């Protein structure tokens, strides 16, 4: 068993190399890229802005091939893709993710900047989702095929069907702009800006509670959008797994023996039916970092999702690679964690 997990960990690096090499290669064969973007912008200088120099538009637009090569070198396009990849990998091995093509800021700094917000939303979504879905799933399982089950199913599935990004726009327009119940933008109230939770607790003037309140108030609408789609899967999982166990022989025996149904559920069925829920928990690790960029865009959240999306559409390849690297590592770790949890909660399962 221990060997199995060690092997799994040892497999992470080759997998990561596989993922990054593939994406790196694809980025290279793409017909439009940072170089074209630079060329396009350069020609725009002739076409557009520049005040009156644009008068002779295009006359300087034909740059020499040497100049083109120099531009290509800026983006590492002067080398064959495998050499450029080797360079990148070498830097990563030394802890350097490189610099953004577009912002000239270290990629790690860009990622770090959006971590707090993303982790906050990831954790909050996780807690609330589990907090709602587990009780709801239990009630649905016990009251299977009653009106309560049907209505909550409709609601949950409707939520699943509603795209969070559309809901976001509607909520923001209605609750923030029309009714002004919620703030229009920002992650936290201005009084608390630049404060960490710790300094807020230490500071007697600012009550940590008030700070949390402000945070929740600011993040209520985005949280709704993040969560609306995530209830369905977990609720149904919980419901099915509990129903599974309710139908199990040991439950029949327990109830048959005269144990109170309520007690039997809590003591036996519930515990066992939480196993599949627990095993799925590991996968949530990567969920922290995969916010929906559309929701982040509408609510102006500088999160990981938006960073990833923008880097793809801006051809900011160092950032694309950095985001990819981090998210795949987390995903792989999450997979292993899931297996570990499975092994921990269910001793019958053995990995070889």
């Amino acid at each position, binding site marked *: 068993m221990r060997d199995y997990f060690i092997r799994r960990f040892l497999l992470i690096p080759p997998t990561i190399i596989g993922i990054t090499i593939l994406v790196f290669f694809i980025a290279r064969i793409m017909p439009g890229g940072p170089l074209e973007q630079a060329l396009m912008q350069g020609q725009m200088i002739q076409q557009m802005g520049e005040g009156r120099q644009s008068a002779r538009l295009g006359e300087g637009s034909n740059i020499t091939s040497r100049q083109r090569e120099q531009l290509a070198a800026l983006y590492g396009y002067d080398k064959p893709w495998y050499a450029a990849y080797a360079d990148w990998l070498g830097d990563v091995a030394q802890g350097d993710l490189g610099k953004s093509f*577009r912002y000239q800021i270290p990629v790690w700094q860009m990622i770090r900047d959006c971590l707090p917000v993303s982790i906050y939303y990831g954790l909050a979504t996780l807690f609330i989702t589990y907090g709602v879905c587990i009780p709801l799933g239990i009630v649905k399982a016990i009251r299977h095929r009653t009106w309560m089950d049907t209505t909550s199913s409709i609601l949950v599935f409707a939520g699943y069907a509603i795209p969070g990004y559309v809901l976001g726009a509607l909520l923001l327009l209605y609750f923030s702009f029309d009714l002004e119940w919620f703030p229009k933008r920002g992650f936290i109230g201005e009084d608390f800006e630049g404060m960490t939770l710790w300094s807020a607790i230490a500071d007697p003037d600012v009550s940590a509670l008030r700070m949390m309140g402000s945070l929740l108030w600011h993040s209520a609408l985005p949280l709704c959008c993040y969560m609306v789609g995530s209830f369905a899967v977990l609720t149904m999982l919980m419901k099915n797994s509990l129903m599974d166990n309710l139908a199990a022989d040991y439950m029949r025996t327990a109830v048959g023996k005269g144990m109170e149904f309520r007690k039997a559920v809590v003591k036996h069925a519930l515990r066992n039916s939480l196993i599949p829920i627990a095993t799925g928990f590991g996968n949530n690790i990567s969920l922290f970092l995969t916010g929906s960029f559309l929701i982040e865009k509408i609510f102006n959240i500088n999160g990981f999702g938006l960073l990833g999306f923008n880097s793809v559409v801006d051809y900011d390849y160092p950032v694309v690679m950095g985001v990819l690297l981090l998210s795949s590592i987390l995903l792989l770790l999450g997979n292993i964690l899931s297996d570990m949890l499975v092994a921990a909660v269910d001793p019958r399962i053995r990995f070889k």
Partner: protein
Amino acid sequence: MKKSRLLPLLRLFSLTLAATLLCGTALEAKNDYGYSTEPLNAEEQAVIDAHYASKPDFFTFATPADIPDGLDWQDGQDEKPFADPKAKRGGTVRSFMLSWPPTLRFVGPDANHSMRGVFLDENKMSLCEYHPITHHWIPGLATNWAVSKDKRTVYFRLDPDARYSDGVPVKADDYLYTFYFMQSEHISAPWYNNWYSSSYANITKYDDYTISVTLPEAKPDPVYYTALSPTPSHFYRVLNNYFIEDFQWKFEPTTGPWELKPRNIKHGEYITLTRVKDWWANDKKFQKNRHNPDKRKFTLIRDYQIAFESFKKGDIDMFALTLPEYWHDRTANIEPVKKGWIHRATFYNDVPQATIGLYINRANALLADKYLRQGIQYACNWQKVIDFHFRGDYARLQGEVDGYGEFDHPTLRPRPFDVTKARELFAKAGFDKAGPDGVLVNAQGQRLSFAVSMAESPNTRVVEILKEEALKAGLEFNIDVQDPTANYKKVQGKQHEIAFTGWNVGLPYPRFWEGYHSVNAYNPDGSIKEQTNNITSTADAELDAMIDEYDRLENVDDMIALAHKMEEFLYDEASFVPGYKMPFYRLGYWGWMQFPEGFDVPLSEGPNQYGLYWIDEGKKKEIEKAAKKKTDLGESTESYGEKPE
């Protein structure tokens, strides 16, 4: 005893320390830009001098005695100022930006972003400026200028008052430095390198406040090309390989009214421009009463809808309502407009029109047929696009040249939508039978179907309308939408059949060489030449000859006559289907924003370009109160400027 003698010493020491600290902070307060405002030291100057020395024909150092006699010095003081003397200084204009700017650099990779104009271009004054009403020259950083007899050289006397926003005076050296800067490979901007190397022949410094700039060949109005902007040498100093990184987030000191201080940037939130304290041109004749607010705050709002809602709430002061739906649907019936808290204005301006339309690639075997291209012209229902999609607000673009005054052709008009004529011409080109889906086919069984390539934008709707209508003439358009860079690569590689795009054009004269000369279509070996503006692959010896002659002409009347001839030629060739133009800009603004009587000047493309508006703080309180109490102040929707017929 010893102790007592030490004490005063100690006290003295601590006093000195405090004084030093105080002085230090005082010094820092004086220069909070984070760079030295000292002139270049001898070592640095030597590097730059070496560059000058390497091009002795280009950089000349002379004495005032070398200025030729008999020059006709101009000062533009006869022109009338165009700002409103009622304008008041002060207040903050709140605007938004849809994305965070990738850099604050003026040149280099990613510098050409959407906010550069506001932050930098509009803040860079040049030697002379164009009077936006009379189109005559008025002083900018120069007080006087004179054009040489051969129309190649322009002499400038610099305004000794001119200062950068950090207080450093603007001198002749900074104009020479502009060439050092723009010709340097360190800035990674080859287009600038080329422009500043090939479009100028010489710059001469006579003294600290007198220079001349010479062009390689004579031009009808050489001031246009020689009115340079200075580059602050004390800021950029000697360039090196780290230029792109070093200056990514540094804001160049400006000669214009606004500056951006590091403390006014909150990353991912907002950027605030502040008015330069005691701006040197505050009381100059043509700058007075302009650029009135104290601050311009740009908040990052990534979603256009949300930005619009913020405007409706009064969190943003001005909002462009140029898109017809925003004018006719989104703002027409809302309370703030109906009750007169938000005002709306249409301003008809008079600027050269971008050539938006369909560019037909003649390198395509079928599209090489002139009749077919003429047929396509008749099969495009632009009028329907204008009438319905643009609500009849926009107008049909008249041709390759539109908005250049006398250069516009007096009689040629674009071909209207005419199914019969289109079908006749398609038949002439061999497409005379209708296929099972109504699309014409020729004897070889080829369908009359072409891909219209375009970059992703809301304008797909325009092509969707054209597509539906073209089918009536038996022509099929396939819409080929791609992201902008992929589309750019396709069109620049001339891999498109038809491209829907537009070129922004500039003053003073229409240009033909870039778009229609054969050297921009094919290489000498006959292969397709990529990366040029000639995306119709037009290559015609007769036209080439005309274009070459046009570029040599020094007399405007001759140029106009020849331009008309070329426009007729291009009309017949029918490779460009003229689309639409927008002869105005539209603005929604909260009632406290005040504008001059005529609203803006004809050459203006937006309220910030000439900065003629101001904020009335008293009115602001009034309107905010009215908005709170829902008082009706009466709607104000006005139209200014001259509406074209």
